[in-house]
């Protein structure tokens, strides 16, 4: 049976980073209003990403010979935790730092590492991930985009959708079919790096319900890829993607998506004249803090497994489902609490709340839907 995660303390060397990151963020974010900060890892600001890279905090875990900081996952946990809790606009370098960099470092050739990793660490190469297609959402093995051998390289045709930041990234790492058909399921899938400026690539933005344009449709029409575009082994795409997903699912971003809303609400409570707080509100604060503390410990526990070189897929799924439920509940609970009486509510809080409420359904969609994750947990429990 699935064993519970062990409780782990963050090592001192990781804790030491916290104050440095925080004072950097205090300077950088002083003028950014709460509704902007609430976007957090959907907030795109390449100047911010470059400033962060200037401090050595992008590509933190990548080897120093490729331009990284060579630090362990605990250090990354602390940096990411501070970035998200502050609502820093980290979207530009986010995918490269979290997934694409580690993927290339693990499965890439030296030529690929030498080209991409230093650029990632300088925040000069932003990445997006091409997984979903119009007919392939949760059922990823059914993807149809296909690369066929062409000269020394490959020729790619097909379509991706819901690709976050495709319109402002330099590269996409896409999962596409290189052999077989949809009936072969996860066999015959491979990962490629695609230069989004290449001829034959068309990117079309899709506006979301909160007025933002972060995700896209991407079309590939006979796009020529050279031999260096293939990441890892041909046909091993599915295995590689799964290794990547443990990184994608277990991090603090699965707890902190509503943190700016939470802290804005807490500031609103503290600022109330007279200082008296409804008992229901006090209870709710306690409920939130209790859940938050446990989720954070679970996230550190998962990080420890990653640091030990494991790929804790089931634990990550469990952690993500619980964490995203918490992020979604926060928006509902706070909406109820601030409207339980007629006191004046600052517009910044209302705007932050409304944004979080509207975007909250995406928390349990991106990175694997709730239903898919629970299926993975059931497998981990030995039920399938």
């Amino acid at each position, binding site marked *: 049976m699935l064993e519970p995660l062990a409780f782990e*303390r963050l090592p001192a060397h990781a804790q030491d980073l916290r104050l440095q990151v925080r004072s950097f963020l205090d300077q950088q974010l002083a003028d950014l209003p709460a509704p902007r900060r609430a976007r957090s890892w959907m907030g795109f600001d390449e100047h911010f990403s470059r400033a962060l890279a200037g401090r050595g905090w992008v590509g933190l875990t990548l080897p120093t010979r490729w331009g990284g900081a060579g630090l362990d996952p605990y250090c990354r946990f602390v940096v990411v*935790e501070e970035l998200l809790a502050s609502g820093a606009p980290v979207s530009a370098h986010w995918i490269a730092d979290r997934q694409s960099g580690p993927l290339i470092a693990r499965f890439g050739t030296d030529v690929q590492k030498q080209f991409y990793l230093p650029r990632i660490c300088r925040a000069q190469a932003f990445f997006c991930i091409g997984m979903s297609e119009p007919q392939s959402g949760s059922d990823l093995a059914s993807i149809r985009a296909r690369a066929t051998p062409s000269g020394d390289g490959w020729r790619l045709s097909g379509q991706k959708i819901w690709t976050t930041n495709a319109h402002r990234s330099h590269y996409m790492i896409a999962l596409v079919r290189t052999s077989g058909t949809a009936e072969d399921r996860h066999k015959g899938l491979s990962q490629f790096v695609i230069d989004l400026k290449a001829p034959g690539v068309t990117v079309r933005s899709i506006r979301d319900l909160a007025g933002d344009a972060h995700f896209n449709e991407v079309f590939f029409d006979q796009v020529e890829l050279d031999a260096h575009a293939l990441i890892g082994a041909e046909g091993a795409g599915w295995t590689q993607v799964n290794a990547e997903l443990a990184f994608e699912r277990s991090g603090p971003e699965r707890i902190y998506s509503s943190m700016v809303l939470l802290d804005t609400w807490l500031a609103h*409570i503290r600022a109330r004249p007279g200082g008296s707080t409804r008992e229901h509100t006090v209870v709710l604060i306690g*409920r*939130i*803090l209790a859940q938050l503390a*446990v989720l954070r*410990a679970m996230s550190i526990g998962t990080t420890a497994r990653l640091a030990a070189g494991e790929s804790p897929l089931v634990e990550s799924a469990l952690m993500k489902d619980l964490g995203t439920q918490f992020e979604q509940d926060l928006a509902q609970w706070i909406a109820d609490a601030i409207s339980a009486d007629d006191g004046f509510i600052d517009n910044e809080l209302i705007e932050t709340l409304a944004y979080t409420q509207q975007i909250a359904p995406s928390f349990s969609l991106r990175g694997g839907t709730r239903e898919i994750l629970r*299926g993975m947990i*059931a497998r981990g429990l030995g039920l399938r």
Partner: protein
Amino acid sequence: MRALLKESADKRFSGLCTTATLGGIESGAPWATLWAEVEASGFADAWVPESDAGAGLSWYDTHPVLLAAGEYALPVALGPTMLLRAHLARAGLPRVGGPITLATQVQTSPSGAVAARRVPFGRVSDWVALDHQERSWLLPVRSARIIDSRVYASLQADLLWNEWPSDAIDLRQRLPLRESGAAIWVVMMAGAMAAALKRTLTYAGERHQFGRSIGQFQAVQQQLSLMAEHVHAVAMAAEMVCCGSDGPINAALVAMAKARASEAVGVITAIAHGVHGAIGITQEYPLHFLTRRLHEWRMDFGSETYWQQRLGSAFLSSPSTRALDFVLESLSP
């Protein structure tokens, strides 16, 4: 040390806590033999310093023992006995025999009459620790009137003394009985929840309907996954409270853990019973030993709302402006 103690507690408690023994004690059979076996294990003196003939172990070391007490639904107050025996030794007071429980809902009158209400394990203890006039005391249950709660199979009781018992033991200081009780209960709850999950998973694999095991149906899998998520969250809360309990009790950490554990009881017991169907609500099938305790333990020493309120107040009177700062400061053992 942990692995060793886990193995030893599993072996000891699985042998002791059979369906027949648990059912017997819950319906009023004598418990002295069972307690003698628990004493023989040495667990009750685990936290007593070695210089006082104890094992000198820490909370951290003995975590598996308290987990196992919950997992096997041990029908005596082992955790509180460990706590009070260690306190007696450290205070230079003589050791007492027999199991000790904790009472926090206590009324005392100037004449010396004492009423301790809804005392957990009140039916199966020799001593009870409670507060009186700014200090904590051990009162002997043998001189109390034991009023059974009349709740079917419950081990709780009201304990009444018409006058202050002459052989009450002065513990010479006010102990954080409620916080310590809540901390111990969180670990027992984590154990009982893990056992309920294990039992429910086994049942879902064995029970067949529509030509396959019910665990193969997606609707059931989704429920069991949700149950597992909460069981794992409470396991983490229990680890956290355990890692923070050697030394002075950390009230914020206890509040966090008891709030989280109590909050999870509803969903965990509902799914355990839902998956079991009718067999789960029979006397014959041993799920009720776990779920009955979980319902009681959720309320003992304060339910989730009680502890959430304390935690929320602690935040509001702290200098932290951000939730994360408070978590780093007060909820990271």
